[in-house]
């Protein structure tokens, strides 16, 4: 399924006008293949989230270009892109079912089709028992699953995840990682995961991009070589340790720069 270029960035740069002016990202050159699970790791503040904003179309690059399915993005989120943020973005006034259906309010689909998609997404994310609950009645992990289900009903061809498990404990993260892999396999979507956790990137991805300190650009690309039907048990594979070590050796110097230390 992978191979064809799905997302590409050419000399993409993002600067924020001041004061103080900030050169947040780039220049970045990147190609993400269709159906690929691609992760991005980098030191704090290196521009990982800015990269996601640029790829999603939420933010326009100051210079350079971003293409999704061969169409250039011009500051608007294109059809076929779903984003899951690090922060809880469930709507507290809506039940789980209504939260998931929220993504389809403007779809114009028949009610039956909407109900079918919502039911499937709720079941897929293991939320069937909680469909009538409100976010306040759910744990952090379950609320994040609601947000993923809301993205899932849209049947996106590109799923962008900005540290979606950042606030969860390690065990929940591993299990959520398994669910994410299952979702990726079943939907066939391209996944871009932004994460600060090297083990998460090494476990989940086909390929990991390592970013430099700000202004972030890619300093290393690591192919993991995992089979498509992997799950969190890959962490017991000796190769997992080697992959994580490789990522850390690429990242250590950049992290020290971010902390103000000499390498």
């Amino acid at each position, binding site marked *: 399924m992978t191979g064809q270029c799905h997302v590409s960035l050419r000399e993409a740069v993002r600067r924020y006008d001041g004061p103080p002016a900030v050169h947040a990202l780039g220049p970045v050159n990147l190609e993400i293949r269709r159906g690929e699970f691609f992760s991005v790791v980098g030191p704090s503040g290196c521009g990982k989230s800015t990269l996601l904003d640029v790829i999603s179309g939420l933010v326009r690059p100051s210079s350079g270009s971003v293409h999704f399915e061969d169409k250039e993005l011009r500051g608007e989120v294109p059809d076929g892109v779903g984003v899951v943020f690090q922060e809880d*973005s469930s*709507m*507290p006034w809506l039940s789980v079912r209504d939260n998931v259906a929220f*993504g389809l309010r403007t779809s114009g689909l028949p009610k039956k089709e909407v109900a079918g998609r919502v039911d499937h997404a709720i079941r897929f994310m293991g939320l069937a028992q909680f469909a009538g609950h409100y*976010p306040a009645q*759910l744990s952090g992990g379950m609320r994040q699953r609601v947000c993923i289900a809301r993205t899932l009903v*849209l049947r996106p061809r590109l799923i962008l995840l900005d540290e979606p498990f950042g606030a969860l404990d390690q065990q929940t993260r591993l299990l959520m990682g398994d669910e994410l892999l299952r979702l990726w396999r079943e939907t066939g979507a391209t996944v871009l995961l932004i994460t600060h956790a090297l083990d998460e990137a090494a476990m989940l991805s086909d390929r990991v991009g390592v970013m430099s300190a700000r202004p972030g650009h890619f300093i290393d690309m690591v192919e993991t070589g995992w089979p498509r039907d992997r799950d969190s048990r890959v962490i017991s594979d000796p190769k997992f340790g080697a992959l994580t070590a490789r990522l850390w050796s690429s990242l250590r110097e950049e992290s020290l720069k971010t902390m103000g230390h000499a390498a």
Partner: protein
Amino acid sequence: MSDLSLETAQAATATRRPARVLDVVVLIAVVLGLWHVIGTWTHGVAIAPPLQTLVYLAGLLHTEMFWSHAAATLEAFLLAFVLSALMGLALGLIFGVRRFAGEVAEPILAGFYTIPKVTLYPVVLLLFGLGMSAKVAFGVMHGLVPMTLFTLGAVRNLPPVLVRTARVLRLSPGRTMRWVLIPACLPDIVNGLRISFSLSLLGVLIGEMFSSQRGLGFLLVNGMAQNNVPLSTAIVTVIVAIAIAANTLMLRFVRRFARRADEMAG
């Protein structure tokens, strides 16, 4: 929260209910007791005792005169409240979304809020003349600012991720407003409505007390001028009862929405 903890929370609420009813009964008894002591102590010169007031009020409620004054107040108040609520909501949303406009407007509104509005009443009378429009304008002067400030604060404190989610879902600005902004801000908006309700009523009553021939405010001042203490006490009782009933209703609204919004704070 698991099903078990949800059931525990519901059971706890059920056991708290009788205690709440007891609290309300005790509070009413204390207020009535104090009212009776003050009324008796002042020999009914400052306020009439509760029983005398209630007997007088029962008779007053059967007069056409009372209902015509009450209708005048109600009309002026409803107009003032609706105008305050709608204008405050619109201004609050605009100032909340347009950050620069909000930063300019907020200190001006807060400054205006601290001015004793009664000092501006002569200006209101010159602008609007005696009658309904002056009362309504004075009510709006009281109710508009808190509604605007509450709505502005609600929009400013809205988690940015909800707006980003609306953009990702490609909602138009109008749909973002209707489906995300207003529901997310609703608890604060209802709080603003509560304050706006009380202050609009206050403004209308003050307007009636100072320069009007109609309304409960006029009736109150008339009772005081004629030394008809049971009349003025009965009018105050009616006004307090209306204010408490409306406030309780809105508070219930706020609590219902606040429960659902709790998790936004984590």
